């Protein structure tokens, strides 16, 4: 009885927190490359368990934003707060350990390793001592988890193939499985459906929604395919020339004349 009450109150607290529990906050983020301002005082936030879409014309700063948030670029100004911690200027591996995982626009699995080994490497590296890795091997829990996720994205039968041997679409699915392998709180996907055939696109969308519902994972997705992104996002941001043009539900964004102009010109 007491347990049930506890659970109930926990759920209530969780729901309340979800309202203002921002897993990621980006404040006044600025990034310049020489004379070019790729990001200009961008403000953005993502709530827990949200699927957030990020769209914008080519060169609007979407991937630069990803690189700043994950730590690959050092921002020239502003602040990034992930799960209550200031991660501005931190190493990508440190940001990853906090529970952020990211896929690349062009997939980057380790070609010489097998699909299974790729999954192993992508496990969470939290609390891992560097000397300990010298003599420890991957345990059964990791093994089972890798198998489970490979089944989840339906490439289990390829587990012992080298990543170089599998097809482009399968690499996309492997990349998605790898990002989920890290026990992420938040997953950032850079064009997960680019160059993928329609059947597989549906599968990827399906996997994202299932992961979001099953594990409560937060997603931040860059996508050019409007049908895809409008379909799965709870909320969206539109970037143009390094600035936030619009924020809102897919419905609001779709009907915004400014967004249409940015995308299709006058």
């Amino acid at each position, binding site marked *: 009885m007491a347990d049930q009450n506890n659970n109930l109150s926990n759920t209530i607290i969780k729901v309340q927190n979800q309202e203002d529990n921002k897993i990621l906050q980006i404040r006044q983020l600025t990034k310049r490359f020489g004379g070019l301002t790729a990001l200009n005082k961008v403000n953005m936030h993502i709530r827990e368990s949200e699927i957030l879409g990020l769209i914008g014309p080519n060169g609007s700063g979407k991937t630069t934003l990803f690189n700043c948030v*994950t730590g*690959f670029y050092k921002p020239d100004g502003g602040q990034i707060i992930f799960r209550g911690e200031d991660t501005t200027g931190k*190493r*990508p*591996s*440190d940001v*990853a*350990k906090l529970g952020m*995982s*990211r896929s*690349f626009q062009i997939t*980057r*699995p*380790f*070609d*010489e*390793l097998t699909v299974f*080994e790729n999954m*192993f*490497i*992508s496990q*969470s*590296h*939290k609390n*891992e001592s*560097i*000397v300990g*890795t*010298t*003599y*420890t*091997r*991957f345990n059964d829990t990791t093994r089972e988890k890798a198998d489970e996720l490979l089944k989840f994205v339906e490439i*289990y*039968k390829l*587990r012992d193939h080298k990543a170089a041997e599998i097809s482009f679409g399968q690499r996309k699915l492997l990349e998605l499985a*790898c990002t989920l392998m*890290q026990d992420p709180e938040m997953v950032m996907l850079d064009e997960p459906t680019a160059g993928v055939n329609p059947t597989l696109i549906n599968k990827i969308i399906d996997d994202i929604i299932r992961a979001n519902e099953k594990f409560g994972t937060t997603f931040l997705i860059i996508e050019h395919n409007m049908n895809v992104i409008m379909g799965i996002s709870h909320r969206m941001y539109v970037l143009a020339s390094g600035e936030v043009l619009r924020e809102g539900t897919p419905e609001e964004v779709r009907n915004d004349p400014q967004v249409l102009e940015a995308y299709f010109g006058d």
Partner: protein
Amino acid sequence: MDKITLSSMLEKSREKRISVLLITIALLVLAVIPFIINNDFTLSIFIWIFVYIILGSAWNLVGGYTGQIALAHGVFVAIGAYSAAVLPKYYGITPWLAFIIAPLIAACVGFAISYPTLKLKGHYFAMTTLAFGFVTWKVFLHWDYINGAAGLNIPFKPSFSAMIFSTPDIMYYLSFILAAGTIVLFYIIDRSKLGMYLKSINQDEESAENRGINVHKYKVYAMTLSAAITSIGGVIFAQYVLFVDPNLFMEGSLMSIRIALIAIVGGLGTVLGPILGAFVMIPLEEYTRAFLGGLGRGYSLFIYGIVIIVIAMYWPKGLADIIYRIEKKIKGVYHGRSK
């Protein structure tokens, strides 16, 4: 196909049994060699092979697994050798202690030079380590404490505590055991998380970093570990030659390059590579020098060079690749039958 059936398990254990059998035969043959061969020159070649298995394996961790071409390993050999020479000479301490002290010093030096230089990528790391090797060579040449360019003699007074033996077969077994230990260590590392992380760093640093692997930390760790193990080879070197001078280890970075070549010719990033590399390159070098050396200094190096070119042309992945290809073919026969 993914299910483990009884027959697949039998096949696996048969493969395992074959490799266990091969390793046992190799160990037995190597163990009785001093009883069969009374020729000191041949025995010395084996000792050098064992020493270079240690050195090549250690280098392989950085150059092969991690893909960072380090060209200063002669310095770590020198640290080992000088520790073994200096301890008894200046402090009256048994050189056995060098097996502990030398790796500690080498690890500190390895850490100190790799921490800043491993922030550099590709050729720049190779160049800075090469420069470090040259600078250390010059420092050793003018360092009074270790008798500079004249080097240090270790007096030949055979005793166990001095780690000097009247016959070469004890040295043979000592280096054999240490080489075997090194191989076991790298067999463990090859299958550990570390081995896989280093391989991933070699393939795509950014992707590894993205997956939560602190690339710089792991590279520095690999270099530190590699330096420590390399110095153990140096201790054997000094106790066998009974003489150390800076040119032996660091002149023109020749030794650093030889160590790297053994791993490269044998097969980068494999446990087997440096073993095969040492077994091919060391006898080749020693015999060409012994038989052709009289014709003039260049001839032995000429042959040595030709062999490297041939191997690079026909087996660019190294000699270990030949073994793996044969292994694959044998496996293919098994799997072909089960299908």
